[in-house]
């Protein structure tokens, strides 16, 4: 079977081909930058991490196994660089990055129905964007990988280095949390 364009570019980069690197960068630049921005949530930091990621890719490109998914390999490297950055900025366990620490308003639970039923369709996208921005980093990350990058759960498992069951559980919690935050924002907007 003939290698895909991305695969042949990667093989060419392994041989030191600068044009192939330019092609690879062009192919992944927007997706990678979006993922990093979702994760570190700061454009300046995202710029630094983006640059460091590509340098790390070039340092390790000879060790890349063409039998693996390049997407998963690239995003796993990006994730490691971003997590190092987040740890420097906010020392502590990664689990802390999962919680935003804000209690839900009284009477509001994650299982409450109708988060969007009172909001006009055009306003919903704005609401979701704001709610996403307020999510803990690891929730933003998994939502971005699943819905923006359209990765399969198995690929996400490879990127995050966690079992498939943990991916499902984290994705489920992230969606539930996002919905709850949307509901809370809607409630707060209604009472202000």
């Amino acid at each position, binding site marked *: 079977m003939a290698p895909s364009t991305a695969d042949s570019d990667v093989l060419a980069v392994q041989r030191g081909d600068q044009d192939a690197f330019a092609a690879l960068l062009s192919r992944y630049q927007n*997706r990678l930058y979006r993922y990093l921005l979702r994760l570190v949530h700061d454009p300046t930091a995202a710029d630094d991490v983006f640059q460091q990621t*590509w340098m790390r890719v070039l340092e390790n490109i000879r060790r890349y196994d063409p039998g693996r998914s390049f997407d998963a390999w690239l995003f796993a490297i990006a994730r490691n660089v971003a997590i190092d950055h987040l740890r420097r900025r906010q020392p502590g366990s990664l689990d802390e990055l999962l919680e935003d620490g804000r209690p839900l308003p009284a009477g509001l639970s994650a299982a409450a129905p109708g988060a969007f039923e009172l909001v006009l369709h055009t306003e*919903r996208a704005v609401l*979701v964007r704001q709610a*996403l921005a307020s999510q803990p980093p690891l929730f933003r990350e998994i939502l971005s990988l699943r819905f*923006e990058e359209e990765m399969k759960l198995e690929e996400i498992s490879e990127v995050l280095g966690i079992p498939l069951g943990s991916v*499902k559980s984290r994705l489920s919690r992230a969606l539930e949390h996002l919905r709850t935050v949307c509901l809370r924002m809607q409630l707060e907007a209604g009472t202000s």
Partner: protein
Amino acid sequence: MTEHDRIMEHLPLSGDGDIAPGEIRRLQQHLAVCEQCRQANEDYAFLADTLRSLPTPQPSAELLARVRAMAAARLAQNQESSREAALLAPLVVASWAVALATWPWLRAAGTCVFTGWHLPGGSVSTALAAYSIIGILMAGVAAIAVIRRAAAIGRMQ
């Protein structure tokens, strides 16, 4: 845990086929009779659609230019390291070959030159063997040092 609670737990993953096929039918049966779960299911579907259609932020042209420039330097250095490695390997092998090939001659020459010498703790042949081993080890250490230096320069860049 009630059936309703269990379904609520599975709902976030149901919209994208991320639950087991056996669960789907069970879920659909419950949604047909539970307004709360049906509403939540619609919310999750809407969230998934909205997340997919969010605008994609773009890296700046300056950032991309910077990455390309650094990559060009790094790739050139990778090629230089490859050439060094390709040169070093034959050098180390050659030093071994020369040491082995000259060993009988060195031994014979050493025996002539050092006849009558009484080296402390061993014979002339032991001294020559030690000399060869030290030479080979030094060549090996030098090769490793060159490779590590190249790697360190790469990391700094």
